[in-house]
Every structure is written in structure tokens, then in C-alpha cells.
């Protein structure tokens, strides 16, 4: 590679890294506790369990459970309903807010017992430590613009990784893999550490980085879906006012969706007017029931007034991409050991970022010292030449 080409790549690496490093550091640090969100949440709050009143008692109708939740928080409307039979059997998670369009920061969460319709947990609607970490990580507490900004920083991070790999070649050409020169200067030692950790974490950081960038596009992607496929699916409702008043049975909607996709399971329900549904439908999101097919998501649109199935289609590729990329960003699909590996690789990435920053400072200092030397030299030369002239 020609020296000029290397120099050009060096500048790309320097500038893309400089711009994104502090944000990436923030993402890596806030990401550390988020990897163990579930576990930390369990630790901070009391473990709750939904026990059936008698052995083998059936779940109550979703309508009964929902009504009990609405009575707990009068004046609110339901936005989403979630189930997680694997980890939290017998529990129904509900999101309620003042309106279906309310921002997520204003959401209230309720955990309901599906056997008794009792409220298991109603956390106060305020930021705790983990939520602050979450919102910092996702949007720097700055809403959708913050999210998109972080996506752009992710793109710069990708560029900095690509240019880093290009530079790895000429730097490591004459050395063995993993060499760390400890006997030379402190700067070389840090450079070698930067190169080692950078090349080792390359694949992991690329996967987490790309999936993170994809996730930041969730809001515009949902907007595009609402304007595109969803609008097409509910075209006949176009001129009707938003569904209001008493809705059809939620339990019946769940049953209808299950009948329409018998080989799938219900993941969550988006109520009419929310980001994930139309103004007239329960969107019942069905997922496959094997580890591989559980990433395939299909919403069944059930008319919230009549309870009839309106349509059920595969989601467009850009929403599929978002849903499929999520586990690769969270690292939550391989048990606790994988979460530990996630944290270790995250720590390695933090060292890459800090060592990169250190190298930039050290280089600047070295160059400033060099400049000083050159200037002093020039000065003494001028002085001596002046003296010569005087003589």
C-alpha cells in the first residue's frame, strides 16, 4: 500500500473515530447493565410469581384481567398487552397511558395475575436507574432525534472499524498476531493493545453495531409500514373515524388470531391507535414457536368493534430486519453465559475506544513536542545566522 493511501485511511480512521468515540463510550457503558436488565430488575424488585389458586386452574378470560387492570388505573387506555409464558407463566403485562398516542415515557406498566385478575405489580411511573440507563442508551433522553443521531454515530463507528482493519495490514505486516511491544515506548504498547483488541472484537462489534443502527430506524420503519402495508390492509376503513367507546372482546380477538395461525403463538397485542396498529384494530402479533421461527412475526388485524379478522400478512422486509436484528444487539438469546461473554466483549470494546483516545492525545503531544523542537532549532539557527551576520 502506498504511503499516501495509508495516510488517507489514517485520516478517515482518526476523524470517524474522534466524532463517535465519546458517544460509543456512553453506549458501551450504559449497555453493560442493560445486558443483565432482567436479572438486575429481579434483584432490585421483589420476585413476583403468579400462582394458580388451585392446581391446574385455567387462566381467566383476557377481558376479565384487562378490566381489572383498567379499574386499577381509572381514566387510562390500554396500549399493549404482552405475554412471556417461558419466563413468567400466568402473567399478563399491560401498558396503559392517557391515550393510545402518548409517548412511551408516559406509559404505565401493570403486571397482572391471569388466574385471579389481581394486580401483581404496579411500579410507579418514574425513572429508576435501569430506565435511565435504557433511555440514555436508546436515545440519550432526546426522543426520536436522539435515537437517529445515535444511529448516525453507529454508522461512523462502522467506518472507523473498516478503516481500522485497513490500517491493521500495514502496521502488523512484519509482526506476529497479538504482539505487544512492551519494551519500547508507552505509545507503542497502547497501539499494540488497540490493534489486538480491535481485531479480536471486530466481528462482535460489527454485529452489535449494525443491529444497533438498524434498531435506531425502528420509528421511521414503523411509520413507513403504517403508511404502506398497514394502510393497504385497512384501506376500507380509510374514511371511518378512529374506533372509540367499548371495544369487542380481547379474548375473542386472541382466539380468532390463534385460529388464523394455528402453528404460531401470541406474542403481544397492540391496541387501536398505537404505533403498532391501525386506528380500528387490535393487532395481534403472532410468532413462530421454535427458536428459529420465533423471529418470524405476523400481525393479525382484528376489527376492534366487530371482532372480525380483517387481514393477516407477513411484515415487510424492513420490519423483519428490525425484529431479527434485535437479539443480536441485546445478546439475550443464549442464556447467562452468553450475557457474560457479551459483557466481556463490551469491556474489550471500551478498552479499544479508550486506547484510541489515548493514542490520539499521545500523538498530538508528541507532535507538539516535535514542533517545539523544530521551532527551537529554527530559532537558534536564526540567532546564529544573525550573529554571523553581525560578525
Amino acid at each position, binding site marked *: 500500500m502506498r504511503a499516501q493511501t495509508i495516510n488517507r485511511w489514517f485520516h478517515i480512521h482518526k476523524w470517524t473515530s474522534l466524532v463517535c468515540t465519546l458517544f460509543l463510550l456512553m453506549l458501551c457503558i450504559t449497555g453493560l447493565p442493560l445486558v443483565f436488565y432482567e436479572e438486575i430488575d429481579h434483584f432490585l424488585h421483589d420476585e413476583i410469581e403468579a400462582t394458580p389458586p388451585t392446581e391446574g386452574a385455567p387462566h381467566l378470560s383476557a377481558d376479565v384481567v384487562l378490566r381489572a387492570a383498567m379499574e386499577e388505573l381509572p381514566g387510562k387506555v390500554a396500549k399493549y398487552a404482552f405475554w412471556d409464558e417461558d419466563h413468567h407463566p400466568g402473567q399478563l403485562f399491560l401498558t396503559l397511558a392517557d391515550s393510545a398516542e402518548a409517548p412511551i415515557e408516559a406509559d404505565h406498566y401493570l403486571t397482572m395475575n391471569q388466574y385471579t385478575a389481581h394486580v401483581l405489580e404496579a411500579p410507579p411511573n418514574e425513572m429508576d436507574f435501569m430506565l435511565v440507563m435504557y433511555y440514555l442508551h436508546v436515545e440519550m433522553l432526546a426522543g426520536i432525534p436522539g435515537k437517529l443521531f445515535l444511529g448516525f454515530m453507529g454508522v461512523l463507528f462502522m467506518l472507523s472499524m473498516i478503516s481500522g482493519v485497513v490500517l491493521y*495490514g500495514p502496521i502488523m505486516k512484519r509482526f506476529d*498476531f497479538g504482539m*505487544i*511491544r512492551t519494551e519500547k515506548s508507552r505509545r507503542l*504498547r497502547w497501539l499494540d*493493545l488497540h490493534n489486538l483488541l480491535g481485531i479480536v472484537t471486530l*466481528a462482535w462489534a460489527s454485529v452489535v453495531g449494525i443491529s444497533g443502527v438498524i434498531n435506531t430506524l425502528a420509528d421511521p420503519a414503523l411509520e413507513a409500514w403504517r403508511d404502506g402495508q398497514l394502510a393497504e390492509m385497512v384501506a376500507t376503513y380509510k374514511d371511518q373515524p378512529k374506533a372509540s367507546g367499548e371495544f369487542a372482546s380481547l379474548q375473542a380477538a386472541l382466539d380468532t388470531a390463534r385460529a388464523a395461525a394455528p402453528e404460531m403463538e401470541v406474542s403481544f397485542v397492540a391496541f387501536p391507535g398505537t404505533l403498532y396498529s391501525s386506528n380500528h384494530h387490535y393487532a395481534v402479533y403472532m410468532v413462530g414457536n421454535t427458536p428459529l421461527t420465533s423471529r418470524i412475526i405476523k400481525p393479525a388485524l382484528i376489527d376492534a368493534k366487530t371482532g372480525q379478522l380483517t387481514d393477516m400478512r407477513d411484515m415487510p422486509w424492513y420490519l423483519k430486519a428490525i425484529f431479527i436484528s434485535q437479539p443480536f444487539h441485546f445478546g439475550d438469546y443464549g442464556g447467562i453465559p*452468553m450475557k457474560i*461473554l457479551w459483557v466481556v466483549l463490551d469491556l474489550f470494546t471500551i478498552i479499544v475506544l479508550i486506547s484510541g483516545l489515548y493514542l490520539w492525545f499521545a500523538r498530538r503531544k508528541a507532535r507538539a513536542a516535535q514542533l517545539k523542537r523544530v521551532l527551537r532549532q529554527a530559532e537558534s539557527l536564526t540567532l546564529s545566522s544573525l550573529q554571523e551576520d553581525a560578525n
Partner: protein
Amino acid sequence: MQTNQQHTFLKLWGMPLFLFVITIAGLLLAIIGTGIWHGLSWITLSIPVYFTVKHGKAFLSSHAVGEGDQKQKSSQKAKGRRQ
């Protein structure tokens, strides 16, 4: 000449390529299924961590090594470079 070039390419990029492929494989294994697939994924993803610790510990230990060790080390490295 040809084999020599191949040799230098592998010497430079062999480990980075190996670790890249191993990491991606480890990430995919756990999504295929649970049980044995998770176990395979953990083992596979531990490989890059192992190599990082193996080589990276030189960075930390450099303060502790005595004068003699350091000389020995640097002469070993110089040998490696000459080859």
C-alpha cells in the same frame, strides 16, 4: 514466490479471519436452538476471549517483569522478526 506471498498473507490475516468466522459462528449457533447449541455457542465465543487474554496479558505484566526478563523477551521478539 506464489507460496511465499500466500504465506505472508496467512501470517498477517490468518488469525483475524479465523476469529471473525469463529465469532460469527458462535453468535449464530445460539439462535439455532437451545441446549447443545447454546453450549457450542459459549465454547465458540470463548475462543476470541481466550486469545485476547493470552496475548493481552503482556500489556499488564510489562510493569512487573524484571530487567533480565525484558532483555530475554526482546531478543526473542527480535528473533521472531528476523524469521
